[in-house]
């Protein structure tokens, strides 16, 4: 965390830090850490440590990293700078009367010094000397240029040497070229030449005594992440559900009681003027429906209403030709897992029709529905259906499109288009398309329509009442919102909890 990591390594001693700061006070425009090292006569690495300590104090200094190449003596080079070159040492070891060669060779610098001194013509070898070969000086004095050059480098004056000379010394492994990382140091915004001890955190004692006023505090590392709060998380699909619920409530829609997953065929199909045997229905496949074996049948139906439904299916009526088939109560009784929440809308509209006087209603629901169909990356056997219903006198297709426009505007979708479609219980039926800016095309976002008179009139709703409705799934907009491609990563037990932990809040219009 930010409070944890303050400075690196060990704090350099205060004396050195203050010397550095005093030095910095005197120069205008800053100084290089290498120069500081030279001025204070300490190793550059020590100064680097001091700079890091000062950085940790906040804005005392400001620094900029630099890198430069420079020449440095090797171990052997330093020895030569101190004691002279091997050849000079050999020369100086030889007295006027000369030295036996084998004795000379035993000197530490003997071998190298001998050959160099020979080639410099400082010495000569008398091989025929009695008592063995003997070395003699040939000149009175010598100038040890190698040592001089190395001493120049040691003093940081390598620039005085020619490139050829440096290359020669490098070849003799006396010099090496190194890259040095250094700092360009300037005064910081809170520059001071004195160092105060830094506090890690504010304490109750400091607050009580007021000592915090004199203290300096270690700066925080704001690059680090904070500590995750210990909390629970709402599921993303449920967050989106909350938003859709909110939108309906904002629009004055009342929530329908959809807590009945088991439904009879009667309410799920027949009451909607869907042909009772889904097998006979052009848009449905029997295999789309989960039927119930226990409890297999529903027993209670509003009898008058059931008779009217039977009539409109088998013979027509209410201005309709009907479907002209043999309607059977045995089929209507079959229990199933509801295939849409419209079954609940039908129950609610029937209930509305039983009121003494019709009052306009706006209903909504968001709940699970079940389809026994082929599963893939975007289809599960159960999903959430969002449904809106408005019932009033004289509602038009234009009204339906107007309400849809308002609804989708709240989802952040303003470009809508409508396409004719077929839905067995609405007429007209419209598919709702919105323009997807990312995909650059129109995508289907929902289905809508006006409930058929064959559905409404048998319920007992007044002739002039129209009911407009629309529906969409909750999963699809959620997958788009949270960028999820496989529905199993969102719904069901295979969910990735990390995704749940990390999912942002849901605002559908932004």
């Amino acid at each position, binding site marked *: 965390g930010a409070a944890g990591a303050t400075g690196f390594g060990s704090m350099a001693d205060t004396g050195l830090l203050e010397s550095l700061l005093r030095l910095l006070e005197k120069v205008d425009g800053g100084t290089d850490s290498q120069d500081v090292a030279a001025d204070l006569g300490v190793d550059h690495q020590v100064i680097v440590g001091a700079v890091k300590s000062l950085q940790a104090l906040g804005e005392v200094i400001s620094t900029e990293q630099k890198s430069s190449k420079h020449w440095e003596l090797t171990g052997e080079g330093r020895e030569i700078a101190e004691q002279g070159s091997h050849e000079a040492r050999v020369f100086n070891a030889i007295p006027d009367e000369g030295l036996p060669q084998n004795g000379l060779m035993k000197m530490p610098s003997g071998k190298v010094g001998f050959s160099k001194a020979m080639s410099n013509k400082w010495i000569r070898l008398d091989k025929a000397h009695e008592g063995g070969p003997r070395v003699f000086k040939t000149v009175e004095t010598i100038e040890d240029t190698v040592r001089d050059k190395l001493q120049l480098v040691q003093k940081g004056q390598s620039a005085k040497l020619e490139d050829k000379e440096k290359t020669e010394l490098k070849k003799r492994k006396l010099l090496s070229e190194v890259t040095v990382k250094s700092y360009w140091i300037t005064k910081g915004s809170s520059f001071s030449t004195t160092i105060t001890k830094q506090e890690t955190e504010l304490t109750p004692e400091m607050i009580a005594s007021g000592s915090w006023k004199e203290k300096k505090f270690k700066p925080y590392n704001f690059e680090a992440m904070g500590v995750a709060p210990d*909390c629970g998380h709402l599921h993303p699909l449920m967050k989106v559900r909350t938003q859709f619920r909110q939108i309906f409530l904002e629009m004055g829609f009342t929530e329908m009681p959809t807590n009945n997953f088991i439904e009879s065929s009667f309410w799920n199909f027949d009451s909607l003027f869907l042909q009772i045997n889904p097998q006979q229905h*052009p848009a449905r496949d029997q295999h789309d429906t989960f039927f119930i074996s226990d409890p297999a049948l529903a*027993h209670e139906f509003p009898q008058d209403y059931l008779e009217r439904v039977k009539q409109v299916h088998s013979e027509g009526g209410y201005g309709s030709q009907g479907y002209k088939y043999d309607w059977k109560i045995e089929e209507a009784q079959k229990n199933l897992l509801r295939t849409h929440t419209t079954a609940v809308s039908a129950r609610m509209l029937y209930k509305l029709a039983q009121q003494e006087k019709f009052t306009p209603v706006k209903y909504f629901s968001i709940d699970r529905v079940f389809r026994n169909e082929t599963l893939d990356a975007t289809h599960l*056997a159960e999903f959430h259906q969002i449904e809106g219903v408005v019932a009033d006198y004289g509602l038009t297709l234009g009204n339906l499109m107007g309400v849809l426009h308002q609804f989708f505007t709240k989802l952040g979708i303003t470009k809508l288009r409508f396409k004719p479609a077929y839905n067995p219980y609405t007429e007209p039926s419209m598919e709702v398309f919105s323009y997807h800016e990312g995909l650059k095309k129109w995508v289907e976002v929902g289905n809508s329509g006006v409930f058929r008179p064959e559905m409404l009139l048998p319920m007992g709703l007044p002739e002039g009442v129209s009911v407009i409705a629309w529906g969409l799934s909750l999963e699809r907009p959620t997958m788009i919102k949270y960028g999820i491609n496989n529905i199993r990563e969102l719904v069901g*037990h295979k969910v990735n909890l990390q995704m749940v932990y990390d999912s942002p809040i849901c605002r559908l219009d932004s």
Partner: protein
Amino acid sequence: MPTVSVKRDLLFEALGQKYSKCLTCIREQGDEKAEGASDVVLYKIDVPANRYDLLCLEGLVRGLQVFKEKLEAPRYKRVSPADGGEPQRLVITEETASVRPHAVAAVLRNITFTQERYESFIELQEKLHQNICRKRTLVAIGTHDLDTISGPFTYTAKPPGDIRFKPLNQSKEYTAAELISHYKTDSHLRHYLHIIENEPLYPIIYDNNGIVLSMPPVINGDHSKISLKTKNIFIECTATDQTKAKITLDMIVTMFSEYCDEPFTWVSSYTLCIELAYRTETLSGDFINKRVGINESAESIAQLLTRMCLRSEVSGEGDLIQVEIPPTRADVIHACDIMEDAAIAYGFNNIIRSTPRTYTVANQLPLNKLTELLRQDLTAAGFTEALTFALCSQEDIADKLRKNIVETRAVHISNPKTAEFQVVRTCLLPGLLKTLAANRKMPLPLKLFEISDVVLKDETKDVGARNNRRLCAVYYNKSPGFEVIHGLLDRVMQLLDVKPGRNQGYHIQAAEDSTFFPGRCAEIFSCGKSIGHLGVLHPDVISRSELTMPCSAIDMDIEPFL
């Protein structure tokens, strides 16, 4: 929604015009997707599932031409045989009643096929079979070269052993029983065998000389098969649904009578048993205007409808419009269907969008309001929300929880495709345990909850079952953490404003429940009523759920707190 593939060039040729992009009227009636095939461009056109008249090129072109007012909607007519002879007859015997009781038939005379027309004819039958005919269960179509057979024809049903004929494109005769086993491996026909396979009598159609025309709904006879050269076609539709049989037959004859005698005359179609019924509906312009939300004159509405192949005229009385429904439009069964066609022709997107003046006050369902509020505070208590399936296997709610399936009061599904859809869950615990198992790699502890519905059998309800809203939470860690789950109960009760206490408050009391570890389970009582359990899960429950750590759980009903 069925998709019709048409060759682009054929479509343009029939339309007499080339179009660069989408045709507006097709777009109104369906969705057009162009697809680049090797060298033939195919248009795949989505057609609404009730518009059988748009399932072939002929119907599509006719609809478009009429819509664009380049053609008047044809009037289909049933005629008598040109030679003045008796109409053909198809006699239906009583034996068919038990297996496939209905049949209708028609004859198309003097038809001229080309390769394309012939293919379209075959394709239309296939499309009808797949859609309105519900994969031949409701209706099966047979087409025959009338010049190879002679009426009257007999539609009867016989034991499979008594039926023997040479089926389409086969070189020898088979009995019906042999045919069933022969076609078991046929990739196409095997899907239709089940319709009659186990019936004692099989449907069969003979001509006057005992020649087998077809054994519906499986296969036609080879003898009467049609070809490019066929001039007179006998069409029979056998069915379990008479209305749909009539619609199907009407569709075929109206679509292909176009190629009889002289093209585009439609006079030579000759039908028997069916009506080719036209029907007239009268409605007012005001009705259409008020339902759609437009303001058009009766004349212009009549014109819109006429363009949709619904020949209409203003009757003269007020703004009444007389609309003629052709046999091709079996989908029009009510004035609202006519209203929709007017709206489609007007263009949905041309209708002005307006806000209804309906005034209502919103109400939340109390149960959902409570659920929403509790969910928020459960996350504040450090638990993460899971969302699990309502359907599961019997094993999930019984064996895995050490319960007997009979005691669960579970609702059973009769036609599950796999075991994961055998029952509706009776508690939320299995879903949470599976969620834990799928997330074993996550850092411990895992704290999950779900507030959702389970379903229990309930004799007092009309359907014999009811939903129950429950709260379930699990704590999964290296130690069972009963105190954590217990603390969650205390917190939930605090949120519900129920104080600890024996009578008006809540308390827990040691209980035995096979899902929980003995001595580590308590029953929750609120106001003296049992509302659920909490405790440490039985080690067998843990291992059967493919988990390895101890786990404590709470499961309670929240409906008493409404």
